[in-house]
């Protein structure tokens, strides 16, 4: 028994339950917030190390052999994603200690955060398609609740769109699962993959592939299904935004990777071609959205969309290098995007607004913050030698190798426009003189402890970005190994179901 497969789910669940039991005790909640996310991170790293050493790990929950029970499966992609979840969770937990109001704490901020992480980790580790739906819902409802915490007008308006469109996505997913079960009579993804290969009518498989594509496309905020994201991500407290920005859409991307490598790999000429179009338009439309914005978090939100395009592009090209690029991109993006949101939070804490027009002068007053912004910002724009460069480079190289000129061109162009947005922020927030010189610090000084708590995770994430950039080889090797697993689904299937064929009733 290898507990590390399930612990990244159980620890945040337990942490969530414990902090709910102790909802009256602020101290306990804060302690559990740090301890729980740290536990998640540690077990996740443990898991990744094990998977890296021993290959795909499987735990049959309840000791029911696959495909009868629910199996947790950790392949490299899953394990990587869980580690990222741990990193983001831990960073945001630390940040939240300083940035979260007492009201938010009292009304369930920390339990919600734990459970969001649990949902995300569960989605990454489950090997069962319906169980994936369940974790999606856990994650979703946790995000609903986090989104409205505080009940402000913008939050409400954003939440209505967020909730509605995500529920539509859930329903499409659910319907697809129902139809799939009707066809193949199983829910275990490895088993589904094996059985689908035996179907004579591949047409219906493509039909189902389309349903999954739309369902996960909404979650991933792909074009033209991303509306919920820019409508809502800038409304909640910033730590929440950061958590969402880092993890939620990536779960959708992960799901796309999972099903379109494992299950729907029969007719890539059809399915992945559509993904390719989606990827290109997603990149473009997201980045254009950002170009029109003048609010810190809105710009960042639209960029999530455009970056999702790159990740999907990796999947859509469906070559080994492209998948490597996609995985690399996901790793890079999660860290960088979260970090940018956290920086935006510090900026707002210092200046009281997210509006670029009303900001300025931070380069002079907080040079360290400028550096901390510049690292993730340039990384996001794909500037070398930061993490984003390698991510973009691999994807583009894959695009060139696959001779997909159109999307490669878009990918390059979008890189430039991303740089434009980041520089816009830099210009307006850091370089520009503050709008009113005399009124530079309208908000009381930030306490030392508070600032330290907010800065520490930002520094940590920036170091991650730098590390991935300067020492890309291990990360690349990891992405490569993960891509190899993804492109050879038989390894996954074998790990889950064993080699015997007789299991199929």
């Amino acid at each position, binding site marked *: 028994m290898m*507990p590390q497969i399930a612990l990244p789910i159980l620890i945040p*669940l337990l942490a969530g339950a414990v902090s709910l039991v102790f909802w009256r005790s602020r101290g306990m909640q804060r302690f559990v917030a740090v301890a729980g996310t740290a536990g998640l991170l540690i077990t996740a790293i443990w898991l990744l190390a094990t998977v890296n050493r021993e290959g795909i790990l499987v735990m*049959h929950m309840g000791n029911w052999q696959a495909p009868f029970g629910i199996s947790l499966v950790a392949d490299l992609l899953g394990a990587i994603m869980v580690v990222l979840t741990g990193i983001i969770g831990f960073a945001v937990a630390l940040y939240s200690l300083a940035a979260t109001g007492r009201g938010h704490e009292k009304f369930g901020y920390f339990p919600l955060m734990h459970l969001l992480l649990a949902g995300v980790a569960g989605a990454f580790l489950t090997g069962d398609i319906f169980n994936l739906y369940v974790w999606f819902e856990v994650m979703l409802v946790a995000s609903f609740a986090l989104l409205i915490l505080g009940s402000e007008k913008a939050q409400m308006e954003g939440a209505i769109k967020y909730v509605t469109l995500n529920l539509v996505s859930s329903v499409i997913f659910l319907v697809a699962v129902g139809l799939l079960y009707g066809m193949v009579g199983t829910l275990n993804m490895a088993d589904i993959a094996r059985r689908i290969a035996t179907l004579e009518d591949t047409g219906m498989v493509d039909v189902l592939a389309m349903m999954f594509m739309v369902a996960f496309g909404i979650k991933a905020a792909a074009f033209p299904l991303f509306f919920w994201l820019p409508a809502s991500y800038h409304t909640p407290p910033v730590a929440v935004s950061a958590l969402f920005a880092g993890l939620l859409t990536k779960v959708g991307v992960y799901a796309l990777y999972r099903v379109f490598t494992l299950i729907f790999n029969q007719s890539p000429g059809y399915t992945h071609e559509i993904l390719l179009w989606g990827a290109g338009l997603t990149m473009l439309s997201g980045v254009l959205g950002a170009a029109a914005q003048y609010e810190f978090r809105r710009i960042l939100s639209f960029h999530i969309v455009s970056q999702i395009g790159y990740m999907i592009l990796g999947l859509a090209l469906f070559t080994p290098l492209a998948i490597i690029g996609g995985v690399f991109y996901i790793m890079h993006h999660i860290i960088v995007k979260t970090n940018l949101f956290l920086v935006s939070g510090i900026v707002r804490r210092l200046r009281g607004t997210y509006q670029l027009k009303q900001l300025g002068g931070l380069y002079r007053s907080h040079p360290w913050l400028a550096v901390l912004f510049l690292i993730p910002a340039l990384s996001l724009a794909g500037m070398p030698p930061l993490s984003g460069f390698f991510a973009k480079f691999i994807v583009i190289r894959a695009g060139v190798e696959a001779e997909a000129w159109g999307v490669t061109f878009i990918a390059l162009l979008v890189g430039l426009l991303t740089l434009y947005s980041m520089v816009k922020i830099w210009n307006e927030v850091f370089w520009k003189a503050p709008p009113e010189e005399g009124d530079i610090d309208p908000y009381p000084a930030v306490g030392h402890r508070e600032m330290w708590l907010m800065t520490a995770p930002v520094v940590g994430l920036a170091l991650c970005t730098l590390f991935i950039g300067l020492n890309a080889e291990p990360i690349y090797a990891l992405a490569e190994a993960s891509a190899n697993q993804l492109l050879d689904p038989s390894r996954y299937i074998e790990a889950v179901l064993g080699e015997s064929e007789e299991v199929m009733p």
Partner: protein
Amino acid sequence: MIKPGTLILTVAARLLMPLQLLFSVFLLLRGHDEPGGGFIAGLVAAGAFALYLFAFGRRAMHAILKVSPRDLVGMGLLLGVLSTLPAWWVGDPFFTAQWWTIPIIDFKASTPLIFDIGVYLVVLGSVLTAISALIKTDQEDQSDSEEATWNP
């Protein structure tokens, strides 16, 4: 001020609530063998308390519940998660059912049952949390504009 329930309703609630609660426990315990189980039982119990709430008001419901519905939720979740752990102790994968027979009353206890009880508590706690929050807010709003909304 509107009275929470009429005489007939309050009496009926007093009679029905224990009956429904009992029935919910019954559904919970035999759910493994016949229709029922934690969810269904929890929903019935929630219905019972909702009836009591409608008949006697929020404070009376809290008085009879003794703990905060949020505590129920927390306890239920904790129970649910903890019930997966004994398997670890034995070396099985999480969630592997463990069965014990309690000697004197010859009762078969098991982790699935504990799990089901967790579900029961969560369902009960969640529904009551929601309903009582709604009603409490209504009450406050009502006291803001006493009587103003009543126009038969």
